[in-house]
């Protein structure tokens, strides 16, 4: 027996990148716009998806719902008569390109694929799913320092939603500061102030989706 040293030079993230590229190719070929929605548990992701599905009736929508173990979010969304698939990650706090790769074939006839990532602001950051747009949703109830505490996810987002703004004064959160932090980290991102319970900012979100889907506002 003897010892040998091997220069491996293996990029351990290349497998996820390869699968993400495969997903991206599939989405392109079928004309599907995919949106990866990230955010903490309780930030409002599932309600956003439910309302989006209702507001965009007439557009073929698919939803993939990531969850560590349960199916509650899936059941909520599926009740809106939309094509939905739950993905249980088991021990993981994020979706990866491989998990999406297994489900994506089922959605070849949709125009818009909404992917609800697992509720977490750290783990999903580095796993490209092959999506077209990355959305991060935070709520003012998470504290107005939530943006500065998680720079990476905000730095890499296309859309940043600050939700529950109507509650800001009650939880003493400074929404201007949150927006400033977000803009500082990511001057290119579209920032939407929202409150889904009070119908604030939701129209702007739908307008964004219609824009990326290239459809007019009258089809609903």
């Amino acid at each position, binding site marked *: 027996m003897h010892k040998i040293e091997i*220069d491996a*030079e*293996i990029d351990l993230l290349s497998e996820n990148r390869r699968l993400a590229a495969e997903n991206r190719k599939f989405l392109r070929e079928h004309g599907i716009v995919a949106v990866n929605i990230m955010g903490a548990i309780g930030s409002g992701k599932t309600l956003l998806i439910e309302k989006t599905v209702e507001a965009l009736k007439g557009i073929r929508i698919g939803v993939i719902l990531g969850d560590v173990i349960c199916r509650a979010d899936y059941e909520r969304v599926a009740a809106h008569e939309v094509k939905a698939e739950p993905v249980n990650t088991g021990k993981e706090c994020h979706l*990866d390109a491989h998990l999406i790769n297994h489900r994506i074939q089922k959605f070849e006839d949709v125009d818009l694929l909404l992917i609800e990532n697992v509720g977490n602001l750290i783990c999903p950051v580095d*796993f490209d799913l092959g999506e077209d747009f990355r959305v991060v949703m935070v709520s003012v109830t998470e504290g107005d320092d939530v943006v500065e505490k998680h720079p990476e996810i905000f730095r890499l987002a296309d859309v940043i939603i600050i939700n529950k703004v109507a509650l800001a004064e009650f939880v003493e959160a400074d929404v201007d500061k949150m927006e400033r932090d977000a803009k500082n980290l990511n*001057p290119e991102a579209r920032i939407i102030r929202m409150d889904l319970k009070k119908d604030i900012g939701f129209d702007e979100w739908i307008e964004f989706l219609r824009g990326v889907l290239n459809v007019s506002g009258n089809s609903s």
Partner: protein
Amino acid sequence: MHEMSYAEAILENLINLAERNNAREIKKAHLVIGELLLINPEQLEFCFRAISRETIAENCTLEIEFVKPEIRCVKCGKEFEAPAGVCECGGFVSVNGGKEMILKSVIMEVD
């Protein structure tokens, strides 16, 4: 905890490499990890220990080398320690690297 995904990728690649080289045991793996991946080395080690049990990587030591991203203002070139967004000069602070995970080299026992 995203460390488990990375531990699985490390183990899978180590075992493939060992098989290709007809190795009996994997002794040490040298990893280069970007700081922005926010990997906790203790957790990575813990996950790796758990999943490598009863494999030829069971006694493999993980040697982790962290590398910093290059964070600098695109306008004035000032360097920053963390992604800062906008520099005091008004320029955008760009981030390069810091997201890699490379299995650099492996030491193993062969017959």
